[in-house]
């Protein structure tokens, strides 16, 4: 497909280059942080990184893939379990965090073959059944002692300060790595395919998008990511109680973060995770009313602000910090229909945040 010469297709804008540079600087700052952060801040930030992973992974699945799952706690719990299990078998505990997450990702592949054939709403709750089953099966492992649970004792052999710092770095590395994968994936052919499928599966298939394979890639990525988060959580919490890890509340948190931040926007998931982290810090002690507030906020956003905070800002101001789509820049002096000053007004679909304004050559 050729693009008329009056328009220039671009991905990087001056704004997004600055944003990416700030992002890189922030990551470098966080990486050297443990040198001057106190222990409490290190633990808090570790939790924040895990929330960002959870939000970004659920967003990749639901926001870009259109696959709403209320059973992602299956992978969160399995990731934690796999880490504990592998460490118990003698693998280095830090290696087992990542080896565990990857093995959960591998397990998710055969699962995806039949789960992805379900209709959308059946998929959502079918995943919940998977989570329930995974929970029951993990309980059968004698290492876990049923609902009593066990501890990640292999990690206790490390010095406390060193352990927390290593977990912090692991979480930071996992977060940056997974966000990077999502970013690259969304810019690739898979990213365009998955959004086409979300918007209209039949139409996407008719123009040659490989529907099932594309969905499987996103499903496995989201599973691996949630498993990484679970493994990191058990590393920092040490105790593993199946009931806590396979609780649907994890998915509730993911939904909250993504809905509030902005479903289907790369930055929105991160914004949502930060907001959730702050709300939990300030109001978490309120117990039941805190949970009521979370549920009500999710409900209100779903009904009245379905694009979330970031999505609404994006719509309003045409900002795009991290370029995962394309934008058209009208050449100066062109008299084509459209507003030359606002490149983003060329966006066609209101529903699609990252819809490429021009299709790449396929």
């Amino acid at each position, binding site marked *: 497909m050729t693009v008329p010469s009056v328009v220039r297709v671009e991905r990087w804008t001056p704004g997004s280059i600055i944003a990416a540079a700030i992002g890189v600087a922030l990551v470098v700052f966080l990486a050297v942080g443990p040198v001057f952060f106190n222990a409490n801040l290190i633990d808090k930030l570790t939790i924040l990184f895990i929330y960002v992973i959870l939000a970004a992974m659920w967003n990749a699945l639901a926001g870009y893939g259109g696959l709403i799952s209320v059973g992602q706690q299956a992978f969160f719990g399995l990731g934690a379990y796999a880490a504990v299990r592998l460490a118990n078998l003698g693998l280095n505990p830090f290696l087992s965090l990542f080896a565990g997450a990857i093995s959960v990702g591998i397990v998710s592949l055969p699962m995806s073959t039949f789960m992805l054939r379900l209709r959308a*709403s059946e998929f959502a709750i079918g995943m919940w059944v998977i989570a329930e089953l995974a929970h029951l099966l993990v309980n059968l492992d004698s290492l876990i002692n049923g609902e009593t649970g066990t501890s990640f004792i292999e990690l206790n052999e490390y010095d406390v300060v060193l352990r927390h710092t290593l977990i912090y770095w692991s979480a930071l590395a996992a977060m940056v790595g997974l966000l990077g994968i999502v970013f690259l994936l969304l810019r690739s052919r898979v990213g365009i395919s998955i959004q086409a499928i979300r918007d209209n599966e039949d139409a996407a298939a008719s123009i040659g998008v490989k529907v099932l394979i594309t969905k499987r890639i996103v499903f496995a990525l989201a599973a691996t990511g949630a498993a990484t988060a679970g493994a990191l959580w058990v590393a920092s919490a040490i105790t593993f109680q199946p009931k806590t890890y396979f609780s649907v509340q994890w998915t509730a948190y993911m939904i909250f973060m993504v809905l509030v931040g902005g479903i289907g926007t790369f930055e929105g998931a991160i914004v949502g995770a930060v907001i959730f982290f702050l709300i939990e810090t300030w109001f978490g002690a309120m117990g039941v*009313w805190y949970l009521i507030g979370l549920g009500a906020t999710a409900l209100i956003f779903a*009904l009245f602000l379905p694009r979330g905070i970031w999505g609404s800002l994006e719509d309003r101001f045409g900002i795009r910090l991290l370029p995962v789509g394309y934008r058209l820049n009208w050449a100066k002096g062109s008299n084509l229909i459209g507003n030359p000053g606002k490149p983003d007004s060329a966006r066609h679909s209101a529903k699609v945040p990252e819809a490429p304004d021009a299709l790449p050559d396929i």
Partner: protein
Amino acid sequence: MMDWINSIIQGVLLGGYYSLMACGLAFMFQVMGIINLAHGTLAVVAGFAIWTVSEHFGISPFLALIGVLPAMAAIGWILQRGILERSARAGQLVPLLATFGLAIVVENLLFEGFGADTRSLAPYIDTLAYDSWAIGDVFIGQLSVLIFVIAVVLLGGLSLFLSNTHLGRAIRATAEDPDTVGLIGINARKVNTVATCIAMLTVAVAGMFLGMRATFTPYSGPEQLVFAFEAAVIGGSKSLWGTLVGGIVLGVSQTIGAQINPQGFLIAGHVVFLVILVARVSAVMPAFGSLARRLRGLTS
């Protein structure tokens, strides 16, 4: 041998309960294509409402149900007009998110109001809670039989209602194509509201039996939702009779699973559900719903 027969009989009766719980969920899914993730929690709401009335006035839960039914219908109206209608306009997935948020709000409000204590309606129904008929070595609980009969009556009644009444046909037509029915003088908005109210009436009945046969807490909803969903999906999305079969398949799987291994009750239910799912997506086996219709086609 007797143990196995007993397991199967108890499983069938348990299946009656599951299909009753699944009735409203399947009805809303078949009619509006919406899966209400607050379904189980709303059944628990009905359970608490009936418990409160029984406790306060010292009356039988069956009488209390009569008072709670209009309240649940009103909840149905609010649910449809306030949440489902608005969210359904935004696509198929938004109702899931909205009802999920609703479930979290409602269960925590229940916790705030009623605390963490487990409640049961069994103390209010005298000996019905444990009376049973003995046939040889098999004991058949009277309450279980009652639940099974009510499930058959409700699912069958709704099936007949959908096929034989004007309103029922309007509901089915709206399910087919909500935009076109306007052309033939059907108010889709009204029809969907009525359908949700009907679903909530069945939820009230299911919530009452939840409280009679077991205990419940504010957080019992999700488990009931999962069972109801499994029964509804096994049964297929085409017929309410299928939901009855789906409930029975689930119930029998669980009791046989428990017979094999004490921990097998829930595992067997979930595994059978997934196996049926896999079989169906591999197109080996038709939904029980369509099987049921074919059988009916043969007999009529």
